[in-house]
């Protein structure tokens, strides 16, 4: 088979800009071979090189006494005491999910699970953050149904509980849905496996499933804007096989126990290329691959195809040669492919051979080290129009409308399709502030939450970025967990547009400030750019997934209050309605600034809520976010099946008081007899608080206007009915 001639036009087809192609010519002093061009395109695309985002990602706080390993490995590693560590990361599979929702979402879950167990951790929890177009858009139903089935199909079969996440709808996602998948696992803190190879002449071993032509060009696709030619991109879809992944998990963990593994790397985007280069680069070694030894499932595969294949459920390892027989036996036991496909070499060289013929011979360090890096121009996005009219509302019927809306209704239809209980350690199931999963039978437990409010990020990227972290912090605190660390999945439009780059820069700045102030360092993450269709970008969506620690299950704060409890609002209320759920959903007005985030106040309020629970004073707590006081009270009432009576406020309108979205607030429930003690502790902490009502009966009564709890439950339960079936 003759290979295409390499020239600037072919380079452009590979997504390489003219200056990038020139950089290749300068680097190697000759025209690259076809395989080499493919390798460069994979290594230098946005997806693998982070060339537009790197400059800003470096500004994020990534360190802390709890951090064992920050960004740069397959996943972040955080100390949870007792010699144990939690290993976690979030990653997007946006474009593949839009093209083939089931397989796109499934392979997204597969990829993130591999990132976790590659490091030696057994996955214990998965979450996902999903953004779809308007519920009325003709494609939305097929997308959500396929994505949810795909996540369930993979996670359920693999055997990891999917315990939480987010689901939102907005017309800005009509042409680009977002599928961000998170996974966390547990490992012994002194038995973490990394990607850096060491030792010359060590066997490079290929493990797992066979290589096909799946997704050849996929990593390039993930960094390209969608346009009318999308149909032509279809054949590159990868198919996930959770059964192989589950066997790969068991085989890898078994192999790691034997001490055979020097280094290990998951084959994700541009699998063999990125994993081999990563291992060599980190270990300051070269790598030689003999591709005829790669297990393949299709005939006549070229070097180019093998190097760019994105076939799933594959790993690359550097093994101790004396343990080869042990390793082979383990993989044979699990019926997985095991092949020595190369070795580490002393020179700084990436040598790819096929049947004795040199297909690529490149300086290995330079492949990642000299990848382009851009300081893209950016501008501060224009402020949104001011919020003009504050409507007069009946707060309880407005609550019915908001909580029946697809954006704020019950997500049970989604999570009932996920096995959220497998492993028998799920303590707090989906649908609460944060999910809680015991660590291998307990008593220790971890809390997980995923948050971002894209409306805020668009209106004010810096405050929006802060708010995403603050809300995650709040959800952990409201569950009783001490926030530990964070992973981020930054989804934006085309970074070559200065206003989009401005959104990115602002959000990263806000996230960095908040993570620093709230002591939640970023330990891993992923960037997804070019989420645009025909020039229209998604809302800036920097998903924040945060992990918190609970020393035991007694530390968990319930969401459900008890009959007769007093409702206390913690934090300051000014009635901020700009970019609120009420205005966006009921009045179609995405106007005004995002609510400002006072990180100091956020921290004090969070610590106070945990202290009140530790003192045994409160029966329940819930964070305030979209929909403000009204939605928080409504959700607590539903959780307890007890009504709630809330008074109005002299200084604010009903809309501002009940639906304002000021940050740093919680609603807590306190038994009447502990009220005095509680108030005095809150006063001592110098956190503003208001006695707003109490939980009782079976009605929600807001300022004298009431609805039945049963009606709220029906509206809340039925909000996704249009997608069911």
């Amino acid at each position, binding site marked *: 088979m003759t290979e295409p001639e390499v020239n600037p036009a072919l380079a452009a087809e590979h997504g390489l800009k003219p200056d990038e192609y020139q950089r290749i010519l300068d680097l190697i002093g000759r025209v690259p071979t076809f395989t080499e061009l493919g390798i460069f395109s994979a290594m230098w695309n946005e997806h693998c090189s982070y060339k537009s985002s790197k400059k800003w990602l470096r500004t994020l706080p990534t360190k802390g006494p709890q951090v064992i390993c920050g960004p740069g490995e397959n996943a972040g590693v955080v100390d949870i005491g007792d010699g144990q560590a939690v290993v976690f990361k979030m990653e997007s599979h946006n474009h593949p999910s839009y093209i083939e929702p089931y397989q796109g979402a499934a392979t997204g879950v597969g990829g993130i699970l591999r990132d976790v167990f590659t490091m030696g951790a057994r996955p214990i929890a998965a979450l996902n953050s999903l953004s779809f177009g308007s519920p009325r858009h003709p494609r939305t139903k097929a997308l959500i149904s396929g994505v949810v089935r795909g996540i369930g199909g993979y996670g359920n*079969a693999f*055997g990891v509980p999917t315990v939480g996440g987010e689901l939102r709808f907005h017309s800005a996602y009509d042409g680009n849905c977002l599928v961000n998948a998170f996974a966390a696992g547990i490992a012994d803190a002194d038995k973490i496996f990394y990607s850096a190879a060491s030792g010359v002449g060590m066997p490079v071993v290929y493990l797992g499933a066979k290589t096909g032509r799946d997704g050849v060009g996929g990593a390039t696709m993930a960094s390209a804007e969608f346009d009318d030619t999308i149909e032509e991109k279809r054949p590159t879809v990868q198919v996930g096989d959770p*059964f192989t992944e589950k066997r790969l998990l068991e085989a890898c963990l078994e192999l790691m126990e034997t001490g055979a593994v020097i280094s290990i790397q998951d084959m994700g985007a541009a699998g063999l290329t990125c994993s081999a280069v990563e291992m060599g680069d980190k270990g300051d070694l070269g790598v030689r691959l003999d591709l005829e030894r790669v297990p393949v499932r299709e005939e006549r595969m070229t070097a180019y195809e093998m190097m760019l294949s994105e076939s799933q459920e594959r790993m690359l390892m550097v093994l101790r040669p004396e343990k080869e027989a042990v390793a082979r036996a383990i993989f044979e036991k699990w*019926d997985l492919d095991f092949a020595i496909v190369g070795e580490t070499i002393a020179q700084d060289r990436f040598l790819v051979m096929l049947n004795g013929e040199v297909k690529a011979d490149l300086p290995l360090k330079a492949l990642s080290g000299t990848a382009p890096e851009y300081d893209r121009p950016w501008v501060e996005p224009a402020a949104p129009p001011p919020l003009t009219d504050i409507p007069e509302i009946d707060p309880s019927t407005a609550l019915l409308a908001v909580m029946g809306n697809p954006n704020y209704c019950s997500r049970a239809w989604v999570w009932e399709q996920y*096995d959220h209980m497998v492993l*028998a350690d799920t303590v707090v199931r989906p649908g609460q502030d944060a999910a809680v999963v015991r660590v291998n039978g*307990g008593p220790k437990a971890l809390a997980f939450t995923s948050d971002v409010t894209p409306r805020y990020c668009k209106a004010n990227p810096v405050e929006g970025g802060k708010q995403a972290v603050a809300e995650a912090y709040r959800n952990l605190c409201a569950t009783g967990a001490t926030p530990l660390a964070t992973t981020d999945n930054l989804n934006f439009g085309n970074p070559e547009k200065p206003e989009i780059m401005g959104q990115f820069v602002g959000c990263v700045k806000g996230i960095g400030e908040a993570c620093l102030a709230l002591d939640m360092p970023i330990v891993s993450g992923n960037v997804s750019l070019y989420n645009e269709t025909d020039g229209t970008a998604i809302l800036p969506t920097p998903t924040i997934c945060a992990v918190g620690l609970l020393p035991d299950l007694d530390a968990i704060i319930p969401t459900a209050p008890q009959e007769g409890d007093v409702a206390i609002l913690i934090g300051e209320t000014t009635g901020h309605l700009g970019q609120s759920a009420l205005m966006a959903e009921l009045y179609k007005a995405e106007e005004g600034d995002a609510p400002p985030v006072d990180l100091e106040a956020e921290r004090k309020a969070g610590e106070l809520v945990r202290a009140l629970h530790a003192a045994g004073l409160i029966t329940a707590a819930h964070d305030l976010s979209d929909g403000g006081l009204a939605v928080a009270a409504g959700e607590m009432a539903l959780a307890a099946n007890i009504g709630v009576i809330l008074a109005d406020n002299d200084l604010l309108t009903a809309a501002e008081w009940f639906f304002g979205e000021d940050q740093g607030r919680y609603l807590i429930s306190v038994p009447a007899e502990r009220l005095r003690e509680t108030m005095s502790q809150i006063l001592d902490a110098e956190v503003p608080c208001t006695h707003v009502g109490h939980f009782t009966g079976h009605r929600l009564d807001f300022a004298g206007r009431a609805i039945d709890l049963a009606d709220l439950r029906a509206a809340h339960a039925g909000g996704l009915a249009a997608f069911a079936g």
Partner: protein
Amino acid sequence: MKTAVIVFPGSNCDRDLARAFERVSGRPSTMVWHKETALPSGLDVVALPGGFSFGDYLRCGAIAARSPIMRAVAEFAQGGGHVLGICNGFQVLLETGLLPGALLRNAGLNFVCRDVHLNVETTDSPFTNAWHNGGVARIPVAHHDGNYLVDDSLLDRLHGESRVAFTYCDALGNVTDEANPNGSVSNIAGVLSPNRRVLGMMPHPERLCDPALGGSDGAKVFESLLGALAPA
């Protein structure tokens, strides 16, 4: 009580099940790989765990049922041994022929994971005797293919011989269509063999054995076994 849990590639509730046995009996379970041809000696109970053995490919449980170990499990059952199959384990027991019927795709077509209520239809079995006077148990289901089907004559026989162990019901014990999560005939959630020593059930008792997880009704399945197997 000496127990073994069979592990197929793709099993994913094997550890949960072993933990439940140990919690109730105080003795760890032996994990037995599907490629084995013999069971450990002196076993009281063999359990087939939930999960997706062989990926649920072809038909749920079909490939696992033809694993080498299943011949030994069948012999164990025929010799009067106690066998418990949960979820995918139930599917394997049907494919092996140790229990009658088949499990089809859920009537709602979706995977369903949630707590359900079960009516304990018979206490006359080594898996249900701890309920004493019957009653309602809250135990989760998590499956895609739990829609139990048998033909009418077999159904009559199952009822006539009191071999329906559990039916899906509401919180008050009413066996209604609304309480049926998957469309199973007669709301059947679990069935017994003619000698009552083989139980297959779709719900996962091992997942609610611990008050910390929100309930312990599931523990009664294991406590029943412990009671039934206690030396007289």
